């Protein structure tokens, strides 16, 4: 057809935001930690597609902050069961979805001391849909066993646990965590990469289909929202990211 406008190719950040956004599409309240522009974009995208029933809190922002009872309120709120989804990163992530934010080497981080566990050890158990997001996909990050468990992926049956890790997204893949099997399943590989590369760059074992699905690209609606309202909303919080991450 003639006259169809060519949509410029999505950026890596846009793809990751769209992929993460789909994983929290059903939320009523998604909370994004500080210094997390891609998850913040994802949450705002999901909210924008939800017709107004999806609340977003972005820690560190002023506009997307509805709490009025100090730093503790977020954690109380999660324990009250009012928060559906949260994004967590990890210095190291292993195949049982344990995450390490404390340090590499023997404790207390003789090789590399990381900032610390922040709220992960708690929210990992209380938020129903925890999405792990680490852009870097490497054997350095995705390890057979983390050097330190900041937050545990699995719990014995008698531990009080209403939440946990459900997904892992990197620059290469979407993996779904199967808590019953205690393993990740390779849900899809982003376009331009293949299973061999994923196997080569992943330090832990995971389940997969020999012919894995390709991560669906950003669709027009997602892209339009990301480049308009999401970008505008994020501009005051992450000006540098906004000028760099979104296509025209």
């Amino acid at each position, binding site marked *: 057809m003639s006259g169809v406008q060519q949509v410029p190719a999505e950026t890596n950040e846009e793809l990751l935001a769209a992929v993460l956004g789909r994983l929290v599409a059903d939320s009523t309240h998604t909370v994004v930690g500080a210094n997390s522009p891609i998850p913040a974009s994802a949450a705002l995208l999901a909210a924008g597609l939800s017709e107004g029933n999806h609340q977003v809190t972005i820690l560190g922002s002023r506009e997307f902050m509805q709490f009025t009872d100090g730093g503790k309120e977020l954690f109380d709120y999660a324990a009250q069961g009012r928060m559906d989804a949260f994004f967590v990163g990890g210095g190291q992530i292993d195949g049982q979805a344990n995450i390490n934010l404390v340090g590499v080497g023997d404790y207390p981080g003789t090789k590399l001391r990381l*900032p610390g*566990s*922040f709220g992960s050890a*708690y929210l990992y*158990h209380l938020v129903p849909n925890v999405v792990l997001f680490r852009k870097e996909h490497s054997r350095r990050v995705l390890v057979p066993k983390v050097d330190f468990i*900041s937050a545990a992926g*699995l*719990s014995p049956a008698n531990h*009080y646990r209403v939440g946990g890790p459900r997904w892992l997204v990197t620059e290469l893949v979407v993996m779904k965590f199967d808590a019953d099997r205690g393993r990740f399943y390779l849900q899809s590989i982003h376009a331009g990469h293949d299973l061999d590369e994923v196997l080569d760059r992943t330090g832990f074992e995971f389940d997969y289909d020999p012919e894995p699905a390709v991560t669906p690209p950003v669709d027009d609606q997602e892209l339009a929202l990301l480049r308009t309202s999401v970008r505008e909303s994020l501009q005051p919080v992450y000006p540098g990211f906004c000028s760099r991450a979104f296509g025209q």
Partner: protein
Amino acid sequence: MSRVTLEQLVSKISSGDKLAIPPEYSGVAMAATRALLTRGVKNLHLIACPQAGLQADLLIGAGCVATVEAAGISLGESGLAPRFRDAAQQGKIRMLDATCPAIQSGLQAAEKGIPFLPIRGILGSDLIDLRDDWLVIDNPYTEGDPLLLVPAIQPDVSLFHAPLGDDYGNVWVGIRRELMLMAHASKSTLVTVEKRYKGDLLADPVYAAGTIPHMYITATAEVAGGMRPLGFFGDGSVTDVEHLAGYEKLARSQQGFEQYLQEQGIEVGS
């Protein structure tokens, strides 16, 4: 309560004190921290409530800190906190690793005058093995339900920067009630205030809602810009990320850290 100078304010912090400091999204008393470096205290037990950044890194780099209790120490988007990282890697500080709500619960236990608070989650984390003051008990209400307890955290002194203080010693913090929790939990509380509020903050019902009453406040000092180079909820100012990036680069070595202090005109007392 008394209104004092910045030097008088920090003179109320002593070597060995348990010093509580707020997170960087709140009100960090940076001018007071620089004055504290000049005063030259030692062996502080730093309690990040529940996380910290530049402030903690300066105190650690200057050798003021023996123990760090925190859920996280970093420079945020400017990267790892280099003096903290170095001190932790070399075992120069005793590290009490925590998670945000555990510190908040510890402060709440002190606020309530109770020995501990139970807390959900965390089970299975290696944090528990490291903390012999965290106990796992059987929930007395439900058989076979292991439950973590964290002990009360009572700082000797809390130090923070707030938007407004009045002549009666009341301090307005608005929605940043982690500052109020710190004041409730602490034996003493020192505050730098951005501006003087003319009148009684408690007499205005709208301001009163965000005010820490004077009974909890030991002293205030008026220090406009007392949070710089960090951002501040009180006036919407944002962190000077160039400053932090420059600091991060320099402070990767102790020598560079000393250079930073010199460039900033901060003399470290002994």
